[in-house]
């Protein structure tokens, strides 16, 4: 029932229902298992079947939803999952109950019963220790990835403005510290000018519209970015652009 509610909610809302959305597929898989067999399975077989069916159904639902005119969306996948789940439940209810083979109640005569003691404190401790160690390993790896030293970069770019008002020049600071920059614009047919760039903090971006070209100004413009980093090092970048009329 929970699966039906989640799938229905996804269909009606037309958007994701959060991590609960992941539960629908296993629920459908379980419903299919229940609809097709009355036999109880050991956990390895049950795990295998439920996960495998979940994965395969995810593929097929995505495929069918993408072929639908509306395309793959939360609505279409939710609706398909709802229909699948309802169908599996209907089959389960419609099928006559299969005769259940009685399971052996205990070991055959002469064979001692397996030891079925509870979970020991030692087992719990070892498991927790293992999880902690593994988690620490993952944490170390993640820390290493996040703190890996890469050479920083400074992006210098020019692109046509979307409004057609002229080109836009920009600077983006990918270094760890702020930078001080200036941009010189060399227009072979109209002299040189300089654009002032405010101090750019780490991760900061600056953009500025370039002037229009004069009539008859056809020679390419040269732009040079000169920056000084916090450690005193200098950075130079250059562009060549066609002046926008």
């Amino acid at each position, binding site marked *: 029932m929970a699966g039906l509610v989640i799938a229905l909610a996804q269909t009606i809302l037309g958007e994701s229902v959060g991590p609960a959305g992941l539960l629908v597929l296993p629920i459908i898989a379980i419903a299919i*298992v229940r609809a097709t067999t009355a036999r109880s399975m050991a956990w390895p077989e049950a795990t295998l079947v439920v996960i*495998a069916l979940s*994965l395969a159904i995810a593929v097929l639902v995505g495929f069918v939803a*993408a072929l639908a005119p509306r395309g793959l969306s939360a609505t279409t996948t939710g609706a398909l999952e709802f229909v699948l789940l309802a169908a599996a439940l209907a089959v389960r209810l419609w099928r006559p109950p299969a005769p259940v083979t009685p399971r052996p109640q205990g070991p055959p005569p002469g*064979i001692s019963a*397996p030891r079925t003691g509870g979970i020991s404190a030692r087992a719990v401790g070892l498991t927790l220790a293992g999880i902690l160690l593994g988690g620490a*390993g993952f944490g170390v790896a993640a820390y290493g990835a996040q703190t890996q030293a890469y*050479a920083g970069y400074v992006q210098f770019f020019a692109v046509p403005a979307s409004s057609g008002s002229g080109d836009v020049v920009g600077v983006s600071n990918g270094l760890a510290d702020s930078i001080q920059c200036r941009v010189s614009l060399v227009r072979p047919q109209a002299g040189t000018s300089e654009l002032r760039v405010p101090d750019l903090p780490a991760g900061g971006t600056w953009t500025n519209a370039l002037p229009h070209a004069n009539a008859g100004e056809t020679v390419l413009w040269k732009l040079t970015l000169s920056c000084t980093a916090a450690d005193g090092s200098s950075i130079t970048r250059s562009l*060549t652009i066609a002046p926008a009329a």
Partner: protein
Amino acid sequence: MTAVRSRGALGRLRAGAPARAARSERVIALRVPAVPAAVLSGGLGLLLIGLADLVSRRAGPFALPLFWAGVVVMVGVAGWLLLAPAPSRVRRQVRTVLVGPRSAAWLPRTRSTETASVVGADRSRTALSRAERVAVVVLVAIGLYAVKVMTSPTAFVLPDEFSHLRTLEDILRSGHLFSENPLLPISSIYPGLEAAMATLTVGSGIAAFPLGVILIAAARIVGVLAVFLIAEGVIGSARGAGVASLIYMANPSFLMFDSAFSYESLALPLALVALWATFAWQRRRGRSLLHVAVLVIVIAALAATHHVTTLALAGFLAVWAIVATIRDGGLRASWPVAAAAAWTVLCGVAWLVVAGTAAISYLSFVFGVGFGQVLAILAGTDEAKRLFAPSAGFSTPLPEEAVAYLATGLVVLAGPFALLHALRSHRPSSFVVALALAALLYPAALALRFTAGGSEVSQRATEFLFLPIGILGADWLVGFRFRRHGWWHWRPTARPVVLAVLVILVAGGIVVGSSPAGRLPGPYHVAAEMRSIEPEGRALASWALELLGPDQRLIADRTNAKLLGSAGLEDPVMAANSHLGTAWVVMDTKLSEADLATLRDGHIDYVVVDLRLAQAPPVYPYYFEQSEPDGGSHTTPVPLVSLQKFDSLPGVLRIYDSGNIIVYDVRGLTGGSGG
């Protein structure tokens, strides 16, 4: 009748056999519970490997020893546990009395179940239960998957992962399948993985990376469970199944390639599940609706997910069906296998009809290159590829090479023993015969290793071939012995020796499957796959998407093309997707007429030049792709003059400069509007 015989057998067992077995096993009794021990060793192994990753990223010493220590701890303890003695004497006696000397795969299910229940009831405190063995196998599989995830715990960084991310993004953007994927055209034709991801994404709202990790982890659990259950059915022992699963994990693709966010990582487990379902369905003589449902659904999904895996499954099922029909007297016994094979073929063909036949040309090219080179080597017209050849300063350490050769040699040397044991020790089932036939392909796959074009095919073949190798190998190593005549009955029996063999197999598989630079993260290097992914390249992709817009046709080296094609949603043009030699445009020292024609024919708007290509030869064989000047045999970097030639070309604009990466607008050369 069975019940009477069972009581008789059990009565004899009560007379002392279990007591003797228990006494002998108590000598090597486990002092800690198995599953917690596996969790602990797995955790310790992951900690060591996490430290190895950290050290390797900082180019520090001892990264490789730490990595191997982690692997040995993880696999060694699991192997020791999986080799823990089952009450084998009890089992053997019960089996012999109850059903006679037949393999478990040949047994009717009722008797097999009966046997298992007797064995399970009589286990001593020294023996691992079936459930514990399954848990240990799953823990190892997940642990080895975590090793791959830990190489990049925050984002996908492998080349194939970028290609499949592009297909996923295209599906999410358009809502439909079959958008052209410039990075890996075949990916959009087999979008099963991405369709599943899209379904889960729109349903849960979870981002692609964590969702992809969860999905591949689930697939991995399914895969090893299927291997375990198939092996258990064949060998008739959970102990043997555990060992078979561990041998399967020794296939060179298991650690990295099959863990990637790639269609094969999903397809292979689905194929294994289909095989298990067929196996179980046949044993129930076609009387199981559940297994039919699993078969129908899983194979349909598989056909939409991966071409080669579908082909391999269809081929194996067909061989199995033929063998079963011949051996077991017609289709009466083998019809479930034949039906499964027919359904696989039907789904595969139906998908070709739906998605187009591009897969056929793709596969014929991939296989044709490799086999063509093998023939050329045999004819003496081509030289064999040098294995473990150093590349751009990266080389495989000698001990790793030794382990790799030792592992491969062990598989080859054990092959005759395992095959003869399977075929001569008792009447093998048709499934075992089919497995044996499949295992015979292993030497052919090894031959492909010596070719440049076929080594990838060879590596991928192992993920299929290690299923028969694992099952037959485990049956030989730890399976039942019913008769003892013939030299093939020899096998190592000491538990430490068998454990050493298992650890060597897994370690050798890791070495064969991935170079040190491919399994450990590290500082940036030119054309070094995941080690070439760094912030400047990612920033370029983000910039391109934001300011150039998606679907711009451009030329870029392999690393930047992957980033621009996935995160940037651009359209890198290359020989692989357009049959144009775009690499020459960048690598030629002067822009030739042919290069200009390439720019025009490819409707190229932008050329991305990474000046770092002039710093070092590539670690991966190519800067761009296989079709490039000196592709696969670079000994010197790209000349800097080649990369800087665009600065002096009239009509070319330089619109982006981040120090190492320059973007040129070449529309002025091709008649576009840029210049």
